């Protein structure tokens, strides 16, 4: 079977991958590019653990043939994490214990990042709605929702000081 070469932007840097036709973006990111925060969860679009941002919008990378993101910008949790330290949303998850086993955490943080990029001061209902595609079987969601609300408050205080 003929392989295809696909070029897309990953965290601001162009990457080329050679794949069998219709290899999922999830598999490419995790298995070829070492972005292991992108989990291989349900492969059904049902759990959200493979969520990435495509041109800033959250999508399930397990449902995307990598050819579909040719020329587009992809950001994973690795792309959100600063070189030093943690992103404020990551810090908020840490402070609020917004995780237990950690399997869903990358997807949760990626969605939270997209939410705050779209809407810097979401209501609790908007936070809950944004997370409705991401399954967590440990926390019962409350610490995750509280982590995101605390990241919103921290960003507000940052804004007020600036």
């Amino acid at each position: 079977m003929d392989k295809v070469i696909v070029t897309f932007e990953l965290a601001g840097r162009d990457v080329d991958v050679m794949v069998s036709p219709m290899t999922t973006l999830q598999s490419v990111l995790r298995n070829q590019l070492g972005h292991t925060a992108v989990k291989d969860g349900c492969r059904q679009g049902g759990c959200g653990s493979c969520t990435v941002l495509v041109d800033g919008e959250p999508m399930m990378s397990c449902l995307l043939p990598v050819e579909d993101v040719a020329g587009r910008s992809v950001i994973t949790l690795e792309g959100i994490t600063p070189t030093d330290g943690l992103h404020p949303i990551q810090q908020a998850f840490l402070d609020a214990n917004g995780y237990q086993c950690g399997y869903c955490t990358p997807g949760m943080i990626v969605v939270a990042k997209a939410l705050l990029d779209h809407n810097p001061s979401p209501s609790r209902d908007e936070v809950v709605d944004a997370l409705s595609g991401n399954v967590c079987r440990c926390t019962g969601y409350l610490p995750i929702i509280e982590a995101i609300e605390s990241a919103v408050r921290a960003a507000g205080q940052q804004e007020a000081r600036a």
Partner: protein
Amino acid sequence: MTVTSYFLPDSVPEALGLLETHGSSLLVMAGGTVAMPLINEGISLPGVVMGLRRAGLDRIERVGAELRIGATVTLTRLLDQDTVPMLRQAAGRTASWSIRNMGTVGGNLFTPPPGGDVAVALLALDARVTLTGPRGDRTVPLSEFWTGFMTSDLRPDELLTSITVPIEPGATTFVKFGRKHANTPAVVTVAVHLAVQGGTVTGARIALGAAGPHPMRAPGAEAAITGSALEPEAVGEAAAAAARECQAFTDGVASEWYRRRMVGVFVLRALTELAQPAGPAIGGGA
């Protein structure tokens, strides 16, 4: 993975050419939210697949008294429009943010029940679909589009390219009942459009989802409230008719017995919501 070729045509003519070359062995995919899970699981093993993300079918525009929606307009984009409020409601109750960013309006028409909530709204809105083939376009009312479970009037050499929704005055409501508040398959979905004159229902379209092999109208229920002022007796009769005439089924979400009862309950609630003390209200737009 058995796929030997994945095509991403840049235009409708190119897509039609691929359909002609590969015939029914070509799996046509839009947002991938239905096809990819089956492929990932090995349930569907297509050899050749065509993705429509770049085929130029992603425009949504108002043309006169109609809203024309390209087949690959995403469900998220229905949330950004105010022209047809019921479509915003339906999209908002469908799946999750990430899935709405991928799933398309055209693809929703090919989503097996209990999925396909937007399709139920489109049926109540009397939408038409444009099917484009080698000999040009033909238009089919959505009420005649489906022929059975996962089957439709679409011919093997045709592509569903757009959905046209009339923008007409009337009272509308969209109710979805699932096991969870959000991101949940339907036990039943009910979409209603009523034309009302002087407090009397002069025309009714009641569409049911997850209550048969494809979204379907409830003609007995429609007849029961047409000519009424949505009095409780007429509403009750319509709900009973819908429960009788639906083709409820059993799956992992609900049993046939439960679904049939919930069809009655939610048709009753939808119509009751539309009934005001002074008769049905005329909503703004479709």
